[in-house]
């Protein structure tokens, strides 16, 4: 029999119990604490805790076999929420339910020789009830932790997948703050301009509440940005996906070049065929009708054959030059010469063509301008620029001209070739220098040529360390500028 419990003892036990359950962070620890408290109240031979299915979960001082009758008593204790002290021979089995409302969490059983007085019984029962409540909370907490770990695991898994994307992915809230980002996005160093464009796009997406796209050129790279309005927990957000499309752009460019090449081959075949057909036709005529032709006609025919072969030669020459320039095998043979003289000579050789098109060739510079350069190549450049001026003249213009001005500026020489021809739309100002590009094709002008002239001119000028550019207005005229290092004293 237990001695009378003093208030001091009671309060110290209560305090100990409270301390123990406060420290119990998991169900196991709580059950340990409860078993210790029971041992302090009751002189136990043995103490066990059963789980909700009445399997022994914890045992102190040896385990036990629960016979069917005992199990029925345990079931009764649990169902009626009533603790029981069951006499078994000279031993009492104290059975305490760990229940909360209608939820069974377990059973505590203690074997003792001692009977329990009213107060102790009430107290132990209270402890058992309290423990059940704490136990349930701990079990809920544990299951929450498990769930939390599962959620965390899924989150990490998704994050890894998203991190492996080559795209930069981020989610923004209404204040354009990042709430999620993959590692690609976080590692990317945005320029100030790039970052502000992103913020603008995000804000625009919130306002429009519809998908927005944007392409940004940053350095030598191209980025395609897609912003999509999404919703999370009832709040609008924006999902942003940035893809580096530089390679795609490069492929597109190569595809365009390929297309130009195909056009070029078709074009060049035609260019080669025309003079060849003329040569063949006149040569055949001469061969079959030699005796019927008078001297003058024969002479004219041979002249044509000669001219056409020259033309053919020049086309082949151009192709050869281009191929050399492409393969970077062209070597400049620099000499010092008078550029004014070179232009004058070239104009002379173009006189016939100019006359046929009724274009005046004017050289505004009289004095010699010395330059150190490859004379042959430079003549090619001048020839190309002048013949372009003549070829792309306006048909119904009454006073057609191509004017050349040469100036020495400091250590540079500037050559200006201006005409009042058809002009070039602004979007083609750069393109005309690209290989295979023919203004005639895009503007539907029936002008013969390989489409390589300006490309070659540009490469020759650049090989000399100079630069070439143009100013032009459609319907008004074009001025091409060639700036070369003089290479000699004035």
């Amino acid at each position, binding site marked *: 029999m237990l001695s*009378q419990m003093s208030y001091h003892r009671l309060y110290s036990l209560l305090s100990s119990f409270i301390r123990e359950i406060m420290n119990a962070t998991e169900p196991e620890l709580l059950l340990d604490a409860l078993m210790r408290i029971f041992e302090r109240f009751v002189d136990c031979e043995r103490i066990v805790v059963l789980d909700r299915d009445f399997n022994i979960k914890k045992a102190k001082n040896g385990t036990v076999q629960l016979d069917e009758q005992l199990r029925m008593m345990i079931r009764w204790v649990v169902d009626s929420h009533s603790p029981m002290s069951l006499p078994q021979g000279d031993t009492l089995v104290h059975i305490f339910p760990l229940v909360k*409302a209608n939820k069974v969490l377990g059973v505590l059983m203690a074997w003792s020789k001692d009977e329990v007085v*009213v107060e102790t019984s009430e107290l132990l029962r209270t402890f058992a009830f309290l423990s059940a409540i704490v136990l349930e909370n701990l079990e809920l907490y544990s299951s929450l932790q498990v769930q939390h770990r599962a959620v965390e695991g899924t989150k990490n898994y998704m994050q890894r997948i998203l991190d492996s994307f080559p795209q930069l992915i981020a989610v923004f809230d209404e204040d354009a703050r990042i709430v999620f980002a993959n590692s690609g996005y976080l590692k990317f160093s945005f320029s100030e301009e790039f970052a502000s464009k992103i913020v603008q796009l995000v804000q625009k997406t919130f306002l429009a509440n519809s998908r927005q796209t944007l392409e940004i050129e940053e350095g030598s790279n191209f980025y395609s940005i897609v912003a999509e309005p999404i919703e999370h927990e009832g709040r609008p957000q924006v999902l942003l996906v940035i893809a580096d499309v530089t390679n795609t752009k490069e492929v597109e460019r190569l595809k365009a070049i390929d297309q130009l090449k195909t056009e070029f081959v078709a074009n060049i075949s035609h260019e080669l065929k025309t003079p060849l057909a003329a040569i063949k036709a006149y040569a055949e005529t001469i061969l079959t009708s030699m005796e019927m032709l008078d001297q003058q006609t024969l002479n004219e025919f041979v002249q044509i054959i000669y001219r056409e072969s020259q033309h053919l030669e020049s086309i082949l020459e151009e192709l050869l030059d281009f191929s050399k320039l492409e393969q970077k095998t062209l070597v400049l043979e620099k000499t010092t010469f008078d550029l004014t003289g070179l232009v004058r000579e070239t104009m002379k050789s173009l006189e016939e063509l100019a006359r046929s098109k009724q274009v005046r060739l004017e050289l505004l510079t009289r004095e010699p301008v010395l330059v150190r350069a490859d004379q042959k190549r430079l003549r090619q450049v001048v020839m190309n620029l002048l013949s372009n001026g003549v070829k792309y003249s306006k048909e119904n213009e009454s006073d057609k001209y191509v004017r050349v001005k040469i100036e020495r500026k400091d250590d540079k020489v500037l050559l200006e070739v201006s005409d009042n021809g058809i002009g070039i739309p602004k979007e083609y100002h750069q393109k005309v220098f690209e290989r295979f590009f023919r203004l005639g094709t895009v503007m539907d002008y029936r002008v013969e040529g390989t489409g390589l002239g300006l490309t070659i001119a540009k490469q020759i000028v650049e090989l000399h360390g100079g630069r070439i550019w143009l100013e032009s207005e459609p319907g008004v005229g074009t001025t091409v500028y060639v700036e070369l290092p003089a290479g000699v004293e004035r």
Partner: protein
Amino acid sequence: MKLEEIITRIEELPTPDPVVQKIIAVASDPNASAKDLADVIKLDPSLAVRILRLVNSAYYGLPRKIAQLSEAVMILGFKTVRNLALSVFTYSSVVRRKRSSIDHTALWKHFVGVAVASELMAQFVGYPNKEELFISGLLHDIGKVTLEFVSPEMFMAVAKLAKTLKISFFEAEKKLDLPNHALISMKTIERWGLPELVSHTCGGHHTPESFADSLYSDVISMVHVSDFFVNTINYGESYSYGGFVLSPHALNLLGLKPRMLTSYLKKLKEKLITADEFLKIEQEAVS
């Protein structure tokens, strides 16, 4: 008639006999053992027999028969055995008084109903000390018995008014400007030496909101709600004929939701079927 007058007349009411009084005392003694309680009960063999009958009744549904009183005390607990002793006593003082003109059997049935309902309610809301709920439920309307003992005419007047106006016994008492039976219950129980919890709970069972600050406000609310349900399912007779009000204060305090009440009512009906033995305590006494 004033409450004071009734209180003086309560003195004349039968008090629990010495054995029952001793049982109450032992069950309230923190250092009492099962054997102590069993020894007291054994002093009245007929009481012991009737207690054992209840112990082995369907209401407790024990897996095996219990033959020894000390075993009954250990298995069912001190308070349950005390409750059984008090049940037997109350039954004797309520039902056996044949000279009365009212249907005591029906009133007793109401007592048992609220006792069972209150104990079940304790289990429902997770209140460990459910034995006190049983005895509070059992004795909540003992004031009606007192009133009927003190003045059968007054009791009949109240009962008649309640029946005519289809109102509750409590409302009829108010209309007749009589002290309410809950307070009389409290006074009666105080005299019997039962714990304060029981007397206060019985005293407040019609007005839980005015006992909101009481130490036992939750117990009062449990008995109040239980009383309401036993009245609505017409288990026994409480001499109330309408005007049952379920206090929102009590429901809030206990955190009871309509869904819980539905399942509670279903359980209560099942439980009441097992409480049959409590209605037939008399039979054993005759033998």
